[in-house]
């Protein structure tokens, strides 16, 4: 864990570390604590997802971080400072908070909603005004259009964006999100998740995010804490490790079927070997292309258009029949993937392409290489193997840690 902190700390992190130490919540009159001794270290700039079935105490745990729920025992440290006993109101002004269905105030305009926290901490008028515009821009809402709108005139997704803008308005180092995308439709949710990833790329906040959706957790999390009842941590690790090596039956049950397929979502095309493929542009004379095919010892090449974008797959036979013009020869390239596409998208493209490969394009759509079935399978196997090894190591560490802290638990085999 120390390594993660060190690594992220070098890249302009604005987040703060969070340490939870033996955090418990016991409600009077109930025999079992709602949250039982959670200990967790979260690095600065890290996105940690708390995921678990309903009623497992994940929300309670989150709300203990900004002390909306006062812990019965345990300590909370933010950036090393013990905040367990400081004024909760002051603490909350330093922590962004976004909840499901946004919690916007319906009687205030979008701008007034966003301005709440900066106002409370005493920013000047002009500074607040500028900040509101900046935040609206940041979450992708046109300030001119949305500034004076009331929340009830916004769609669910727009409300959620404003909710995030409000949480971030005073530039807090820590952002707590309690199932923020739980109430929007799947397509909007997907957009909002992408937005959050982009935001986090720019801002490097420390985000603690609660969800019950494991796919959401995989997509957003640097690390995921899978919680069982009373917020006991079943596994706290990177998405890769949890997918390939779930700690026990509870975690694998939560991961669900298709772990290997989900794993494909975690790797980008740029991370696997992009193979070279013989290519030619439409401007080259036919003879030169033919010669290239013959000398290269290959049966097929990729024809690029004038701007270097993949255009057609050409086989040797196509060229023979071309008779001087390429206009009708070959098959058009229908699917390309960008270097930022996930391996899942790449697999999709490879499967739909007749030749069993997909052209990879750069930022402006220019050709950079191809991925084929073989590369995909090889890299997936390598990845899974590597994941398995690291996960095993992690698990061992975790077990040792558990053995040291809680001797009564028999470790699962």
């Amino acid at each position: 864990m120390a390594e993660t902190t060190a690594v992220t700390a070098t890249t302009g992190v604005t987040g703060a570390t969070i340490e939870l130490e033996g955090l418990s919540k016991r409600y009077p009159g109930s025999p079992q604590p709602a949250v039982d001794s959670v200990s967790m270290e979260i690095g600065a700039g890290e996105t940690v997802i708390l995921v678990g079935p309903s009623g497992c105490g994940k929300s309670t745990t989150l709300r203990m971080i900004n002390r909306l729920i006062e812990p019965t025992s345990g300590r909370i440290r933010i950036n090393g400072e013990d905040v367990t006993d400081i004024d909760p109101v002051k603490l909350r002004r330093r922590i962004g908070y976004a909840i499901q269905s946004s919690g916007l105030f319906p009687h205030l305009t979008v701008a007034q909603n966003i301005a709440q926290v900066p106002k409370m901490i005493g920013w000047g008028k002009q500074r607040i005004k500028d900040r509101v515009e900046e935040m609206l821009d940041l979450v992708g809402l046109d300030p001119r259009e949305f500034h004076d709108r009331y929340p009830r005139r916004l769609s669910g997704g727009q409300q959620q964006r404003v909710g995030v803008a409000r949480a971030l308005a005073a530039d807090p180092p820590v952002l707590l999100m309690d199932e923020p995308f739980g109430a929007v439709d799947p397509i909007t949710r997907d957009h909002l998740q992408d937005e959050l990833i982009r935001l986090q790329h720019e801002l490097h906040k420390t985000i603690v995010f609660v969800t019950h959706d494991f796919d959401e957790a995989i997509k957003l999390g640097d690390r995921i804490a899978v919680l069982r009842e009373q917020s006991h941590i079943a596994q706290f690790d990177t998405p890769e490790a949890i997918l390939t090596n779930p700690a026990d039956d509870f975690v694998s049950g939560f991961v669900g079927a298709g772990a290997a397929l989900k794993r494909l979502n975690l790797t980008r095309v740029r991370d696997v070997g992009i193979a070279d493929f013989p290519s030619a542009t439409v401007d080259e004379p036919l003879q030169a292309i033919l010669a290239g095919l013959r000398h290269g010892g290959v049966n097929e090449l990729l024809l690029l258009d004038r701007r270097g974008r993949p255009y057609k797959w050409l086989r040797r036979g196509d060229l023979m029949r071309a008779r001087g013009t390429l206009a009708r020869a070959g098959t058009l390239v229908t699917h390309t993937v960008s270097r930022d596409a996930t391996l899942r998208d790449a697999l999709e493209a490879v499967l739909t392409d007749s030749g069993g490969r997909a052209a990879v394009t750069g930022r402006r759509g220019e050709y950079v290489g191809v991925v084929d079935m073989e590369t995909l399978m090889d890299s997936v196997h390598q990845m899974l193997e590597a994941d398995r090894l690291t996960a095993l190591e992690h698990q061992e560490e975790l077990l040792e840690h558990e053995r040291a802290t809680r001797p009564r638990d028999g470790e699962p085999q």
Partner: protein
Amino acid sequence: MTAPAARPSRRRITIGKLLVTPAVLAVLLLTLYLWITHVRLDSIERNSLQGSQVRLYLWQQIELTAVSTFFVLVIALPLGILLSRRFARPAAPFAVALANLGQATPAIGLLALLTFWLGIGARTALVGMVAYAVLPVLSNTMAGLRAIDPAMLEAAKGIGMSPLGVLGRVELPLAVPLILAGVRTALILNVGTGTLAAFAGGGGLGNLITAGITTQRTRVLIVGAVLTVCLALLVDWLASLAEVELSPRGLEVRQ
């Protein structure tokens, strides 16, 4: 693009709302005036319906209504806020029961009892009126505060509002529509019970009505009654305008 958002807010009070009630009242009062100045009145009627006398009663009635409503607000609003705080929740049923008692007791009986206790005068009448009208404001204040989505209050707390901040910036503005509805009810009640102030020697238009009854002069009674009705309708109209104008924007726009 901002135009559609601005348009509904400019037109909150429609012309119909603004003009219909005053027009009806004006016609009613004019008819009353023309009628009373064109019939022959006997000396008792003339005595009772002197312009200065009627104006005095009307003014007393308005004063009674305003002062009693003021005290209703001073008592019921803070009490309603207090009783909706978490620590005071257990006390709420008792307070509401007490307020219920005030309203359930027939107003005239209440006034009669109070005269024994406090003697005769405007003060006694006011105490009775206040006791009678506390309930709607109190219960509406509590209902308005309770109707707010707890998740919203949680969000308010979560972004760092102090308890007072949550109350002032979120809870009260959101409860304003219901509170104002309660205040409007209280106002109307007070115009009505204000006529009973006459029994406790508190003055007001009730004097005309009782005089009309005791001297068996129907016209005097009618003038008192019609003026009371007009005053009630006028107050209700003003309150409805205030309700529309003071309700937070943003609550009315629904998709």
